[in-house]
């Protein structure tokens, strides 16, 4: 039996253990669930060490070409401080690490959010209005611009939703309902496609290892 076949059997049996939850909670499901949690955690720890810490910290602290860069001890020490959260007496030191993470993250998100999530979206919405493509495209773009503006009005709570503001908020909530429905449908279909993928794996990769060809 090759490693490939063993791998297919492992994947298939664990998938079946997890699918058994559709009947009811049972020991097979619990086994696979706990294994999944442990292996995923292990995977991410190793991934972080190999892809983040070694290239971004260790190889800069002790470069291949020789020499020692003591400045890189600072993020190392701050990372260690983060782990001190687990020791009550030293937990206060983790505030320094958190402060760096929060400060840098906040600074990055101000510019990144404004650029990608605000200005780029406004730009994309307005630019679409000037594009040609016939009356249908034009009406569709009007619906989009109206939807974005009214959706934003709905999220604006500093003014009571009455009169014109209330009307715009009403249009906004209507557009949002359509958007939420579409997003829901899209998410369901993404899950269904995963289900199809797993079913195909069981039918066309696992069953043939037992000589059953569909």
């Amino acid at each position, binding site marked *: 039996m090759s490693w490939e076949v063993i791998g297919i059997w492992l*994947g298939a049996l664990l998938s079946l253990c997890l699918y058994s939850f559709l009947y009811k909670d049972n020991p097979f499901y619990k086994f696979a669930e706990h294994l999944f949690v*442990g292996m995923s955690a292990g995977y991410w720890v190793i991934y972080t060490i190999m892809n983040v810490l070694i290239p971004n910290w260790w190889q800069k602290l002790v470069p291949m070409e020789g020499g020692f860069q003591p400045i890189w001890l600072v993020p190392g020490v701050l990372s260690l401080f983060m782990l001190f959260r687990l020791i009550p007496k030293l937990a206060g030191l983790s505030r320094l690490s958190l402060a760096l993470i929060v400060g840098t993250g906040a600074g990055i998100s101000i510019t990144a959010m404004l650029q990608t999530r605000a200005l780029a979206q406004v730009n994309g919405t307005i630019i679409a209005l000037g594009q040609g493509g016939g009356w249908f495209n034009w009406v569709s773009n009007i619906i989009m611009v109206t939807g974005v503006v009214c959706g934003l009005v709905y999220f604006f709570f500093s003014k009571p939703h009455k009169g014109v503001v209330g009307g715009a908020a009403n249009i906004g909530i209507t557009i949002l309902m359509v958007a939420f429905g579409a997003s*829901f449908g899209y998410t369901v279909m993404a899950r269904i496609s995963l289900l199809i993928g797993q079913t195909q794996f069981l039918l066309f990769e696992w069953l043939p290892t037992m000589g059953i060809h569909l």
Partner: protein
Amino acid sequence: MRLAIPLMITFVAGMIMILQFFVPATQPMGDSLQEWYMIVASAAIFLGAVNLIQVHTHKIRFKLKNWKYSPVTLIGFAVMIITGLVFGIEADLPFDYLFQQMVAPMAATMFSLLAFFVASAAFRAFRASNWRATLLLISAFVVMLGRVPIGSMIWNKIPLISEWIMQYPNMAGQRAVMIGAAMGMVATSLRMIFGVERSYLGGAD
């Protein structure tokens, strides 16, 4: 001093990151800070791993509910760590093998299970109680139908309508949410940088 130093670090780090966007001369400092940020933030995964070990050893020690499954978690965790550290993470080595043959199928199965739960939850929760709820229902139904062959078999325009819903009303709603959330994030970030929002420093004593 207990709060002053962390607040100062937050302010300086935040201001460097904003400045480096507008002042090219400060960009190298911003790049270094981003690398530091990545390193320090990655420590959180170790915090999570240690916590996972603590929780499960505690469950085993005091024989808490479902404690018999805790060794499975710990063994799975240890196997991934050992194979990763001993053999490395390159393709076709044990770590990659375990990921491809065990973790990836389990992850796909877990997420595909959600298809059943989302569908059953929707069946119970979706009621055409008013015209907006009906609109949500129709929109979801058309998008789902438009993505499977039976949709075009019923009416060949269904995939086009589904695409239109995704491209216009859905995009409008998503953009409104995105712009609103971005404004909220900018405001919260500014509050953090200027020390108005300090809740993240709590709970460390």
